[in-house]
């Protein structure tokens, strides 16, 4: 048996003490910290014990246990518990404490880090009332804990507070001869310094701020402040930056068409194309267009060469259907709703460089070109699909347009995809007595040839590209996960053609009368929309060397952007620009439920303006609750609170006060500023917040960056509060000068805030600069590089007229809105009866009708998916309660579907009322 130890390693203290105490016979060999004794571990682990059987122990505690057990002392529950506490609670804290003390020379932190575990140990010893941890005699737990704490507790330079029971116990164990001799061997009288080379080799604990037994529920604001207490150098650096002033030549305004430029960062931003038939709700808006808008506004301020394109996605069954219902042509339907979308986004100040649509000639041209290239390169395969066709209506029937008798339970109103009675999934061709839902004729089974994109053949190319893109670009975690799981489940060929009329025609002569399936067609819309913007669109889309592509979307759209569409482009082999940064949001709920058009729950794009709340406030709140990293919820009460506390009392109050002081005390001219230490400190803190903001925005952490803007105005408010310029202005010369400096600094911070706010609240941002009469160049100067907070309003600058920026949202107003958009009792009638809503009423009603079939389509899909899941669980013989839970979800979805289709949710009821 052989024990390997290294000097200066506190864990070796444990085993050497245990070895001597138990008098087990064993060779000891001293090795270096880096020596790998246990081969399979990635990091060297010492101590290590080579057992007689040839097995190895690499945990100090397991070695101690073994030594004690061989000498006849077994570990009981109590002892187990201490050993587990030592590794899970005490060690992580000790590692941090030793890092601070040994490596960073911050012995003062030790007491705070170790306070909670030491308190716990002290209490336990006191309650136990025994000299040792587990009783009257020394046990393995005592040796292990003593050795762990030895480096800290034996060093009198730490002030650790009062732990009398710990002290008594520790001294008692330390007095044991074996322990003293182990200390000598491992630390050789050098104390903590002996551990330096060992500590340097320990990996830094991840997330060391908030782990384990440390009181980590500190107020985050508090700990942040402590984190950047400002040093003298930082103050001077901030003051130097401040004095630099504005850069002389602001970048020229954008000129269309925007094209990639040599030597610039060329950024192409797309937002998922909203489906034309669907009035977007707030969740859609924050997920795609608004997020993309903030980022491209920001990019322009950073001086990047940005192009932001989007448009409506117009082809597909839902549009055809809608057209039939309204007695219009599909094109007329698209024209009508495209205008609705366009006006909503312009109300939200979405600054597209071009907002196009997919039903254009360019779309046909480009989609067909990609199709032919895929065909030439052998990435399309043919297969036959059996489908029902209604001869009278002259069309193939989508599953939802067939009804018949369930082949399983004989329920007469089963649908083409699923039976509502028995819940089983059905293949439409299996239905007995199928009927076309539109004309009630009996459809016939026709087999129809279709083309499939051969994803498996493209898989290795795709993975190679993904590996590179996800590691070098800023993909959100959910985007990576969803992509990963798609690939993990294996790629299958995907059908790219449909038997429909309303779509991009398939150019292949064998597939006449067919169109491209929307998922193949829609993303090509990004290209064709750009082509409609400029003939030189290929400079953006076939130029991966010069262009960086950002795709913004909600998470349900991820696979089409990360797997399917890249496969189309890779297979086309035409040097296409593929996505570099895929930014996906989670979902936004509405007051803890889902947005639902059919139930009238939630706020939809066209209704936001009827609330009387300014577009900028909407933008602010949606971005404040942006579902970044996790789902979030829109809540009226919260919106009112954020408006009143953050916008009105914090941000608006600060900016208004700063401006008012200049107006009232200094006749509208920025006073002379003589910076003192305190002012420089503020400049440094504000500069730090600005840097954080830029770092986060560069990574598209839009919500997180917003918090730093609000932090700055908090610092500003505090600064004014402490310095009281309104009092000092009445004092003597030096006090008046002080009031001037504080006012000048404050009004310059207000100017900085206007710049930082600009991507979020463009109108408010411009209003602030107008009120301050700020030079336009300040916008570009301060966001350069890592962020430079310069004095942009120098002494003598005359500001304009200052007035309040925000209005309070009153409780009654919010209650009324909440009621109005809360759903259930015919919410739309009440909406259109409010006076302000008159012009928008027509659109709103249309939205309701448009919503139902779309909603039904989504629900039908959800029901189908849930049905699959239940079947899969049953096939796997999963736990019964798991299955029950999923089945009840399925039933719930079906009820919703029935409601959305205008049917009575009871499956036994007679024919639905629809049509």
């Amino acid at each position, binding site marked *: 048996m052989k024990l390997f130890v290294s000097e200066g390693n506190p864990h070796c203290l444990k085993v050497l003490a245990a070895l001597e105490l138990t008098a087990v016979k064993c060779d000891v060999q001293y090795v270096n910290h880096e020596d790998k004794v246990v081969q399979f571990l990635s990091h060297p682990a010492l101590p290590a014990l080579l057992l007689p059987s040839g097995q190895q122990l690499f945990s100090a505690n397991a070695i101690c*246990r073994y030594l004690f*057990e061989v000498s006849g002392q077994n570990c009981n529950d109590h002892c187990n518990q201490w050993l587990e506490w030592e590794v899970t609670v005490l060690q992580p804290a000790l590692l941090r404490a030793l890092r601070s003390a040994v490596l960073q020379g911050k012995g003062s932190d030790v007491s705070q880090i170790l306070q909670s575990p030491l308190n716990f140990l002290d209490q336990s010893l006191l309650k136990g009332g025994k000299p040792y941890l587990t009783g009257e005699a020394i046990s393995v737990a005592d040796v292990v804990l003593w050795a762990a704490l030895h480096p800290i507790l034996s060093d009198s330079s730490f002030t650790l507070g009062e732990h009398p029971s710990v002290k008594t116990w520790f001294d008692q164990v330390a007095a044991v001869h074996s322990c003293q001799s182990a200390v000598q061997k491992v630390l050789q009288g050098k104390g903590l310094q002996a551990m330096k080379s060992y500590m340097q080799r320990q990996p830094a604990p*991840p997330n060391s701020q908030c782990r384990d037994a440390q009181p*980590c529920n500190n107020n985050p604001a508090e700990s942040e402040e402590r984190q950047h207490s400002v040093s003298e150098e930082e103050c001077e650096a901030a003051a130097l930056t401040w004095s630099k002033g504005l850069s002389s030549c602001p970048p020229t305004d954008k000129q269309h068409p925007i094209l990639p430029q040599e030597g610039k960062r060329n950024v192409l931003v797309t937002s998922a194309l909203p489906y034309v038939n669907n009035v977007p709700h707030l969740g859609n808006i924050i997920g795609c267009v608004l997020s993309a808008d903030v980022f491209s506004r920001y990019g322009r301020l950073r001086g990047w060469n940005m192009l932001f394109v989007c448009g409506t996605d117009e082809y597909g069954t839902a549009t055809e259907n809608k057209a039939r219902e309204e007695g219009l042509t599909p094109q007329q339907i698209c024209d009508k709703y495209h205008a609705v979308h366009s006006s909503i986004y312009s109300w939200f100040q979405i600054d597209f460089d071009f907002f196009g649509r997919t039903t254009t000639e360019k779309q046909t041209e480009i989609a067909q070109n990609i199709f032919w290239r895929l065909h030439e390169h052998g990435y399309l395969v043919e297969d036959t699909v059996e489908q029902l066709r209604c001869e009278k209506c002259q069309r193939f029937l989508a599953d939802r347009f067939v009804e018949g008798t369930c082949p399983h339970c004989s329920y007469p109103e089963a649908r083409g995809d699923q039976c509502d009675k028995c819940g089983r999934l059905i293949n439409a061709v299996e239905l007995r007595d199928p009927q076309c839902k539109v004309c009630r004729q009996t459809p016939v089974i026709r087999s129809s040839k279709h083309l499939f994109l*051969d994803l498996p053949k493209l898989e290795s190319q795709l993975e190679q590209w993904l590996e590179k893109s996800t590691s070098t670009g800023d993909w959100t975690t959910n985007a990576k996960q969803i992509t990963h799981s798609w690939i993990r489940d294996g790629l*299958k060929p995907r059908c790219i053609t449909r038997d429909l009329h309303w779509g991009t025609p398939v150019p292949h002569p064998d597939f006449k009368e067919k169109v491209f399936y929307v998922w193949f067609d829609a993303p090509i819309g990004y290209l064709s929309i750009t082509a409609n913007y400029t003939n030189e669109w290929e400079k953006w889309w076939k130029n991966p060397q010069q262009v960086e592509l950002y795709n913004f979307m909600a998470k349900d759209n991820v696979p089409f952007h990360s797997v399917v569409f890249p496969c189309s482009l890779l297979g086309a082999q035409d040097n296409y620009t593929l996505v570099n940064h895929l930014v996906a949001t989670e979902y936004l709920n509405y007051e803890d439920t889902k947005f639902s058009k059919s139930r009238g729950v939630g706020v939809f794009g066209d209704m936001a303006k009827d609330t009387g709340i300014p577009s900028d406030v909407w933008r602010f709140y949606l971005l404040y609750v942006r579902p970044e990293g996790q789902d979030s919820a829109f809540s009226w009460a919260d919106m009112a609170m954020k408006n009143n506390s953050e916008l009105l009392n914090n941000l608006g109050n600060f900016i208004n006060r700063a401006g008012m002081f200049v107006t009232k005390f200094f006749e509208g001219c920025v006073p002379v500023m003589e910076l003192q230490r305190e002012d420089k400190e503020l400049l440094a803190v504000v500069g730090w917040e600005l840097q954080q903001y830029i770092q986060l925005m560069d990574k598209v952490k839009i919500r997180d960056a917003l918090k730093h803007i609000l932090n700055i105005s908090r610092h500003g408010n505090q600064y004014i509060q402490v310095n009281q310029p309104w009092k000092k202005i009445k004092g003597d010369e030096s006090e008046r000068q002080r009031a001037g400096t504080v006012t000048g600094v404050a009004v310059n911070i207000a100017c900085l805030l206007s710049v930082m706010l600009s991507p979020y609240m463009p109108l408010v941002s411009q209003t602030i600069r107008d009120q301050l009469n700020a030079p336009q160049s300040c916008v570009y100067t301060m966001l350069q590089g890592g962020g430079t907070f310069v004095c942009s309003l120098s002494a003598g600058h005359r500001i304009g007229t200052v007035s309040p920026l925000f209005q309070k949202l009153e409780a009654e107003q919010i209650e009324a809105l909440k009621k109005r958009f809360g759903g259930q009792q015919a919410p739309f009638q009440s909406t259109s009866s409010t006076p302000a809503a008159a012009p928008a009423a027509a659109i709103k009603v249309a939205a309701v009708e448009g919503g139902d079939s779309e909603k039904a389509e989504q629900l039908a899909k959800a029901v189908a998916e849930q049905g699959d899941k239940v079947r899969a669980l049953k096939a796997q013989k999963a736990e019964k309660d798991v299955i029950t839970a999923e089945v009840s979800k399925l039933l719930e979805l079906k009820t919703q579907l029935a409601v959305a289709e205008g049917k009575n949710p009871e499956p036994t009821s007679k024919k639905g009322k629809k049509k």
Partner: protein
Amino acid sequence: MALRELSSLEKYLGLKKPNKYSTQGDKKVPVLQNNQGPPLVGLITIACHLVKEAKRSDLLGESAESRAVVQQWLEYRVTRLDGCTKEDSKSILKELNIHLQDNVYLAGNHFTLADTLMYYGIHPLIVDLTVQEKEQYLNVARWFDHIQHVPRLRHHLPPVAVLRNRIYTGRHH
């Protein structure tokens, strides 16, 4: 998480009466109220206690050596695996893969509590692996598949398809 593990363990051990657990702290450390004495705290401690209660001490190792080895892997589970980052998880899988190259179970030739708790803890990692990765960590995959088929062990966790059998090759698989 830990609580579901413990209740699955109880069922596996065939303990008649399910125990009541609570948790403490931010990390939700499990606590077992104990009639005979003070409450027991910690996943390993409670698990070992349950094993002894079920008179299945063989699961803790049959010799002093194997008992130490079992404890070592239990410790590995709570210190390395719990709360590990993406990067850690790769190195954990790598380490286990080498270790399991010439060990049937974690502690050698016998199934022990270490296998059970490691299985519960590593399940989320395995679920996230792609087919290719599972092939890369072949020994872990083999061990994992073996453990998930131990009768009455799996309980709260869904089975994971671990090894790919190639029946057909070609594009429509």
